[in-house]
């Protein structure tokens, strides 16, 4: 459990923000540029000290009033926005820097595992200046993990990278998400990254925390701006049942239903995350007997919010009794009125198979 609250002024910018994050999984600090996400992260690391600060990590007090534990005595690791490898050391020297100074008893994060996870073994003999941006960031993440942190802080680790490097590094982060037992605080202004990686979301605005909670709930909260994005969507954490190689489809259990997803997602019993874009979900009353759509699941309508002049964003809970995960549907306002959809009603959702995007497989 991480409990943080910081307040103070930095020039004309005022920060007064606090949140609680679970002691495991990825918590995203999300918000527009200049909202104070990075300041918050630097305060947690101890790289910056504001007038007011309270910080407790896993029950240990790191900062309170006049008490302030200096950075080098906090068992954390920090991945900076831009590649921050030491240019005077080799790749191996960089990886060893924090590892040698770790005070952890017996490494919980093994060297070989990290090297394997991040695919950095081939880089050992290359001089740091000759690495690409993506390679540098992978080494930086490895260096951070090998310092045996109890908390991993990541400040937009992908934002300085080009599209190709991002795509190269995201799978590593996803593997990390799955394999790591320590909590991660991840600063980002890119919702696509957050949807792929985060479990918990802290939504920041102008130096304050607007809301915080589990990602799925935040994405579908009508009081928050995330639902009113141009392309809203829902994320669902599912469990893989089986893979049918004949049609190349996997069967995945999600809360409140079962879905067919293209591709071999992983071993049976493994977890995977699915994203369903609201525009790919249509609604109807009749059971879809004669349609090419693979996934048609009953769901209960929770409510509808106007989206622009002519559309509605409908919130639905999967399952005939509405006991499952929340998904979103973007339909025309005309359809909403014509079908006379009302909250509490159970309806059939049709989810285009192609709409199940960004499947990411997690071991365990």
């Amino acid at each position: 459990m991480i409990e943080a609250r910081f307040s103070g002024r930095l020039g004309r910018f005022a920060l007064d923000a606090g949140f609680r994050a679970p002691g495991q999984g990825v918590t995203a600090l999300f918000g527009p540029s200049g909202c104070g996400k990075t300041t918050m992260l630097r305060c947690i690391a101890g790289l910056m000290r504001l007038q007011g600060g309270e910080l407790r990590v896993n029950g240990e007090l790191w900062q309170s009033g006049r008490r302030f534990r200096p950075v080098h005595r906090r068992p954390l690791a920090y991945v900076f926005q831009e590649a921050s490898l030491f240019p005077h050391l080799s790749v191996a020297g960089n990886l060893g820097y924090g590892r040698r100074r770790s005070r952890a008893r017996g490494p919980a994060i093994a060297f070989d595992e990290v090297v394997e996870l991040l695919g950095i073994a081939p880089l050992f003999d290359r001089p740091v200046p000759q690495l690409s941006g993506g390679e540098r960031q992978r080494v930086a993440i490895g260096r951070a993990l090998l310092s045996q942190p109890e908390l991993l802080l990541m400040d937009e680790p992908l934002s300085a990278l080009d599209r190709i490097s991002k795509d190269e590094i995201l799978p590593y982060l996803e593997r990390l998400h799955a394999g790591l037992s320590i909590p991660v605080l991840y600063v980002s202004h890119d919702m696509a990254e957050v949807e792929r990686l985060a479990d918990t979301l802290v939504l920041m605005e102008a130096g304050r925390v607007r809301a915080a909670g589990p990602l799925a709930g935040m994405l579908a909260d009508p009081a928050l701006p995330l639902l009113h994005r141009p392309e809203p969507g829902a994320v669902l954490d599912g469990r893989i049942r089986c893979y049918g190689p004949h049609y190349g489809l996997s069967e995945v259990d999600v809360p409140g239903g079962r879905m067919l997803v293209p591709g071999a997602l992983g071993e049976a019993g493994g977890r995977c995350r699915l994203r369903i874009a609201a525009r790919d979900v249509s609604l109807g009353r009749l059971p879809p007997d004669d349609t090419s759509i693979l996934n048609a699941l009953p769901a209960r309508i929770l409510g509808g919010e106007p989206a622009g002049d002519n559309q509605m964003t409908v919130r639905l809970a999967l399952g005939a009794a509405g006991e499952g995960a929340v998904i979103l549907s973007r339909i025309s306002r005309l359809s909403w009125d014509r079908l006379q959809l009302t909250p509490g009603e159970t309806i059939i959702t049709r989810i285009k198979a192609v709409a199940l995007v960004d499947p990411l497989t997690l071991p365990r």
Partner: protein
Amino acid sequence: MFDETMMQTVLLTLRLAGATTVLLLLIGTPLAWWLSQGGGILRDVAATLVSLPIVLPPTVLGFYLLIAMGPHSPLTALLGRSLAFSFEGLLLGSVIYSLPFVVNPIRNAFQAMGPRPMEVAATLRAHPLDAFATVALPLASPGILTGAILGFAHTVGEFGVVLMIGGAIPGQTKVISITIFDYVETLDWARAHLLAGGMLAFSFLVILAMTLIERRLAGGRP
């Protein structure tokens, strides 16, 4: 023609420049670090004082040093003897005179490094002193090398301050530049040529070496 007097002069000059450089690196590196960390009026004043010898005529500096080493000065009272016209006095004068040539390049190197490497080191559990030794010093090494070479060369070439506080005691304070002046005054052109030519070649080599070293070090960095 290269006689024992000249040999003694050259050795004395090298000894003075060497000792000055070592002292300047010991004093100048922490001072440069402090000056590179943020602003504040105190730092600005200190930086100005450090840089004063660049613009001050050496005779002015020498004059005040001579007063500071005078028979009734607090420094003399503290040490129990006057430093004027002694090797130690010359050393003190050289350290002050060459201070900016060592401190400024090192300070620039620390500033160019930015705060990030030290922050990274701290997040990897390095104590500030540990981080200074293992990150800041290696990253600033081109600046430190430049500072050392400049400090050494500048001390070898000083004249005005030596004239004011050192005089020309053979083996004690009679350095190359003073010796050249002596030879010219006594119309010993041949010996003046030898020493002056040597200094010319030395200066040329120093600057060439510095250029090459800097390029080589810069080549290994992004």
